């Protein structure tokens, strides 16, 4: 009896660790292969049967994409792609960074009003804003395209920032308003008795406590914009505001044969999100499950 129970325990442990191993492999192998491809020389990449570990790994691709003036592509040296990639990397950082900052700032102010003040149409406005986010993105893209064209707003950089802000600000309001309502009112009231203004109480008392919520929404907004593709595809029609997703998209057509180069580009633009995800894992999990889990 005791023996069969111990045997069962052992089987359970072995089964559990096998499943865990499977989950780990399933999670990392595809991306590991992308990384391996990015440091494998082209001659080795196209060998059959397939080689899984490169004999002479190389960082050349990273060097030329990030710092090079030109990229060697099937024997020819091209200046376009390296420059485009470097510029779009900067563009994406600027766009995602400013969108995150702007929407955090304005979104938090609005969220505070939603959580603490009374004004007309309050709930109707919020429901409307969230409801609209549920429509397929293309429903917004089509009229926006015509509107921006009619208004002759042709600066793709500013257009993208504004459009992205309208998406992330809704999200910030929703999450932060929820966050503020969980905090007791007494916190600010005592600060206001001590002579703080309403906004002073918001910035000195509420915001410091809400830091985890702010970090989570900030990171999720940044990642949403960093990964966004469809809006950029429609609204960026010249090189000046090209984002990193667009650059990779173009990479994959210009370099349709050079999978090594695409892999290197893919790894580079995945590094910021991966780092953020691993460093702020707890915040992100809290942000993703916010509202989904009651109690």
């Amino acid at each position: 009896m005791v023996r069969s129970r111990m045997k069962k325990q052992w089987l359970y442990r072995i089964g559990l660790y096998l499943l865990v191993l499977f989950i780990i492999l399933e999670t990392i192998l595809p991306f590991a292969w992308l990384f391996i491809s990015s440091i494998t020389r082209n001659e080795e990449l196209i060998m059959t049967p397939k080689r899984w570990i490169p004999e002479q790994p190389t960082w050349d691709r990273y060097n030329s994409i990030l710092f090079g003036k030109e990229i060697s592509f099937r024997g020819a040296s091209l200046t376009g792609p390296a420059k485009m990639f470097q510029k779009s990397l900067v563009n994406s950082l600027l766009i995602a960074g400013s969108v995150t900052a702007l929407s955090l700032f304005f979104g938090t102010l609005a969220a505070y009003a939603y959580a603490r003040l009374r004004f007309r149409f309050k709930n109707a406005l919020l429901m409307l804003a969230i409801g609209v986010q549920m429509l397929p993105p293309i429903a917004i893209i089509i009229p926006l395209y015509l509107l921006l064209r009619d208004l002759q707003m042709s600066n793709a950089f500013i257009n993208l920032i504004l459009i992205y802000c309208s998406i992330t600000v809704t999200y910030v309001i929703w999450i932060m308003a929820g966050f503020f309502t969980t905090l007791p009112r007494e916190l600010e009231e005592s600060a206001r008795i001590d002579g703080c203004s309403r906004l002073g109480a918001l910035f000195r008392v509420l915001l410091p406590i809400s830091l985890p919520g702010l970090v989570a929404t900030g990171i999720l907004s940044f990642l949403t914009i960093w990964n966004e593709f469809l809006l950029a595809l429609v609204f960026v029609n010249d090189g000046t505001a090209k984002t990193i997703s667009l650059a990779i998209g173009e990479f994959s057509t210009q370099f349709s044969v050079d999978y090594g180069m695409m892999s290197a580009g893919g790894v580079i633009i995945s590094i910021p999100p991966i780092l953020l995800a691993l460093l702020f894992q707890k915040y992100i999990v809290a942000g993703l499950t916010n509202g989904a889990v009651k109690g």
Partner: protein
Amino acid sequence: MAWVLVLPSILLIFGLTIYPVLYSFWLSLNNVSLLNPVRSFAGLNNYIEILSSQAFWAALGRTFYFVLISLSVQTVAGLTFALVLNQPFYGRGFVRALILLPWAIPNIVNGVMWEWILNSSYGALNGILLQIGIISEPIQWLSKPWLALNMVILADTWKVIPLYVIMFLAGLQTIPKDLYEAARIDGSGVWRSFFSITLPLLKPILLVILVLRTMQCFGVFDIVYIMTKGGPADGTMVISFFTYFQTFGKLNFGMGSAISFLVAFVVLSISLVYMRLLKTDEAD
């Protein structure tokens, strides 16, 4: 005071989402084509034309297939993973962090990555299958319509499983341990506990995931754009790509708007069905 705080956000949201959506509805009732500067009122003509177009129904059918397969596979896999990661084992915190990796990878990179893995001549998948000896000829993963659609689903699945795992894990952690203890004392086995405690208590989470993911599936665009561009032979022409193609390929904006409203209507109806099916007993 309140209005000052809310105004900037309201302006943004109204100007760039709510007003455009209303405008879009108006567009859907008009003939709007970039090829023809004259706009004219069309009534429901755009809607009638789409509803009688075979390509639209085919795209919708593919999207339903996409939703059905991806949601069922992902729910089963996600729940299994979450149950495993909810057990105590050595290195659990590390694995729980690691699981976020696919979620963090941009859609576009995910598309490029799977296109490369599935490449018929040099791809890793054929490479492995050939070396193990499961196949003797390379398979053209992305050159056959139905197979290609399934491969797009595979790529999507790899990326979104973390979301399911995170949600289910959060749900599992809210279930009180004594419930299982009590069930065990009453002589109920592992499976019985799973079906009568775990599943029912995860229903609210499941509902959130299903609604969210259905919306996402109806919007799948990036990986299709990278991996197959809707081909081969329209095999991966899912509804969002179809809409994009109708709008920006044929420059027929009125039609594109009409399609997006039909899609929104479908998504809304599905969400209502979920809520009916998974209605929790709280209301009683």
